[in-house]
């Protein structure tokens, strides 16, 4: 019996580990920026490129940075959810218009509605790199202390808003 017990144990262990591995999403790379100071930026606003918004301006309040682009299909999918979040007036939702043409971005907002307090222009994607953005859309929750508290990769769904993002926001706002 013992002769078979060991290979069987190894087999069961392997199946367990591989099964666990299959359930992981390799597209979700944990960000090393969680609980670290949000990378600073000072970028022109989409609505009025003469004005700038910097991370320093947002200090002292809880805010959400949503990375979006007019060319990004999933952004349209999550647009409704972001609008829902912004409509609750809990936090300021800032858009980071990532590697987009300003005229395309403006048209997109006109067409689908503008949920953002403001959108800033990251035309060459450098701020995106600083924030570790590797796919659009991505959504960051930043605390009043200027630290990134949560990062959502991919489109935010109603479910992930309620189950993942809202709890973080409620804790930060309480």
């Amino acid at each position: 019996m013992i002769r078979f017990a060991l290979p069987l144990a190894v087999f069961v262990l392997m199946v367990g580990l591989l099964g666990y591995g299959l359930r992981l999403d390799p597209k979700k790379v944990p960000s090393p920026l969680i609980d670290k100071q949000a990378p600073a930026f000072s970028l022109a606003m989409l609505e009025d490129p003469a004005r700038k918004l910097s991370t320093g301006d947002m200090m002292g309040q809880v805010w959400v940075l949503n990375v979006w682009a007019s060319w990004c299909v999933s952004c349209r999918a999550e647009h409704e959810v972001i609008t829902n979040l912004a409509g609750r007036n809990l936090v300021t939702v800032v858009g980071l218009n990532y590697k987009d043409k300003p005229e395309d971005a403006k048209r997109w907002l006109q067409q689908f509605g503008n949920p953002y307090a403001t959108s800033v222009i990251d035309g060459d994607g450098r701020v995106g790199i600083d924030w570790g953005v590797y796919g659009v859309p991505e959504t960051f929750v930043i605390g009043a202390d200027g630290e990134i508290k949560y990062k959502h990769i991919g489109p935010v769904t109603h479910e992930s808003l309620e189950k993942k993002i809202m709890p973080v926001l409620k804790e930060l706002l309480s």
Partner: protein
Amino acid sequence: MRPLLLLLLIGCLIAPARAAIEAYQFDSPQMEADYNQLIDELRCLVCQNQNLAGSDAELAQDLRRETYEMLQQGKSQQEVVDFMVARYGDFVLYRPQVKSSTYLLWLGPFLLLVVVLTIVVRRLRAAARPVDVDDDALSSARQLLEEDEPEETDDKRESEDKSGEDAGTKDQDEPDK
């Protein structure tokens, strides 16, 4: 067969295809070598099984540009790697750093080798060790064999004669019975 094999071997020598099409000018050949090594060892996060050198994703282009600019500014390879890790985590590294969380990754295979070698050596030693049998048991066993053997062979020989089979095969069968 030979020419085909030769062709395959030559194919192996040709450098892997690169998507990198940007024509960057480097100040020194050393910097160019550093750049090529970096984009070989950094992972593209969009197409995750490709390195920066092999990926044509926009992010890969941006990260190649970033790598190039950092090197041009006189930054070291390590600084570029630190820059990437700070933003994207250890996942960007195709050659993970040696640190406490990656010890198992680096040392695991050697650990496994040691374990397997220990098991193999033990088994071989156990197999080579002479079997301990006490003298009484040995002599009584020998006695039994000597008593039984002649009778048994006699019986067999008789039956063989009757059936008329080839004696050779029967002789070989004997020790089993």
